[in-house]
């Protein structure tokens, strides 16, 4: 019996260490944003650093939220039909096609950024435009929408669609009234993953957005590079971090683990 208690203790010490290992940078940024350190010690300054954040940052936060939402919508509109086809029909080269559809997620942001920037400048004329930013971000975050939709559609029994069809529903009615409500958590997962990814992406906008719109992650990136030691920057990082954390918590609360697609735990 004693042996068992020591095992349990060891287990929790290990878990605590790993959680600390993962979360320590995040927690320390929060701590840093409330304290001021000098050579002689650390003093608590309350919300001082948050009040020092310039007005442009709050506007950039709003921009980032709008861009994230629009990108998620674009991704959903493009990914839903594809996910439906992949989940419901069998055809030649399906495996290869699926692998290619997931590939943008594994493309390093930097490669996508350089490629998109050069393509925009030479051919599309979308460089440093709002539309170009949306379409570029959507192309790399696309698999994050596709995978949860695909996973939830595959676990959904096709019998519901058959029943609806038998009862006389037209195809678009089947999709809107039957399929979409039933895979709600999957859609929610896709939106959250895409949205949070866009909110925190700084590399791609750095290449393709230019000065067209201020995004919080890009401003944060340049501030970390040039003013990294200021307390204000820790405050800015915390704002984006807290926004991300709230969204992730909502996600874990409302969407079950089985809808995470490739990220299933």
């Amino acid at each position, binding site marked *: 019996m004693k042996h068992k208690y020591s095992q349990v203790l060891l*287990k929790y010490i*290990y*878990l605590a260490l*790993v959680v600390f*290992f*993962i979360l*320590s*940078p*995040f*927690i*320390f*940024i929060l701590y840093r944003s409330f304290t001021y*350190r000098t050579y002689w010690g*650390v003093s608590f300054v309350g919300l001082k650093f948050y009040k020092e954040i310039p007005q442009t940052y709050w506007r950039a936060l709003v921009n980032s939220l709008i861009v994230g939402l629009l990108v998620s919508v674009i991704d959903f509109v*493009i990914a839903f*039909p*594809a996910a*439906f086809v*992949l989940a*419901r029909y069998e055809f030649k080269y399906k*495996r290869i*096609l*699926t*692998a*290619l559809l997931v590939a*943008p997620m*594994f*493309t*390093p*942001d*930097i*490669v*996508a950024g*350089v*490629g*998109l920037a*050069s*393509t925009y*400048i030479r051919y599309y004329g979308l460089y440093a435009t709002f539309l170009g930013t949306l*379409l570029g971000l959507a*192309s*790399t975050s*696309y698999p994050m929408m596709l995978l949860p939709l695909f996973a939830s559609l*595959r676990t959904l029994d096709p019998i519901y669609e058959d029943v609806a069809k038998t009862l006389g529903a037209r195809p678009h009615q089947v999709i809107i009234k039957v399929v979409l409500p039933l895979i709600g958590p999957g859609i929610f997962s896709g939106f959250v993953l895409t949205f*949070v*990814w866009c909110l*925190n992406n*700084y*590399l791609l906008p*750095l290449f393709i957005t230019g000065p067209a719109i201020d995004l919080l*992650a890009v401003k944060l990136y340049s501030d*970390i590079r040039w003013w*990294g030691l200021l307390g204000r920057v*820790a405050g800015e*990082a915390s704002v984006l971090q807290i926004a*991300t954390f709230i969204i992730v918590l909502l996600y*874990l609360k409302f969407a079950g683990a089985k809808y995470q697609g*490739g990220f*299933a*735990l």
Partner: protein
Amino acid sequence: MERILRASYILLILPTIVYLVLFWLVPLINILIMSFTKGESFILGRPEYVGFQNYIIAINDYNSTIMNTILFPLSAATIDFILGYPLAYLLVRRKILFRNVLRASLIFPYFGDIYVSYGLWNMFLPGGPFDWFFNITGLSYKQVLYTPYAVILGFSIFTLPFMVLYTASSLSEIDPAIEEAAYTLGANPLKTFFKIILPLSAPGAVAGFIACFGWNLGGFLIPLLLGGVEASNVITVKIVYLTLQLHNYGLAGSLAIVLMTMTIISTYLTLKITRVTG
């Protein structure tokens, strides 16, 4: 009827393919073409083709960069394996209090390239939580912060979730009855682990290892902030430097192609081993 149905679902998947060709494949091909041109001639004005000159420069002058780009993620993936495998095992096989806290904390680093690098950087600077460590050992913070070790630490925090996810999904497919059978037949826990669980979960662990490696290949801010001048010598940082500061897009393109090749190989291996995409 069958043929009409077939035509209709091909139409459904068409927008996706057109979109990804325009905004993913064309940019990649564009980089490939760009890597054969000189300087900024591809972006501005007429492209000036120089053959494989950029690749020769990339291999001769940037060989240490390419080595670092491979070595840092490999070391990070090894650390992830050592830390992540037991964690995945506990998640799948044992009862844990606060499981949701653990899951939330696992999902978090995935979004937080910025926070991992900025947070760690702040932690290692004087006044951070490692002061006592530097006091005891008599080291200066610069002997840890701007070295490869700091970069590897940052990388391993960033990708630990992937290791756990891949390993856990592989472990959860093993029937617990097999373990019990091994115990019943007289194997001790250690032997059960090494002879039964480890071989059966090997595909997931290997896939996780390669996935960690692949994700860190594209890491940018972690080497930039934690690596200082010396250890930030990786391909991504060089590409940003070459494009945004030196405007040598041809050379940047060839380095991007080298990076992309490594990513494609590791992604292909991951997908082949796990068959995530079914």
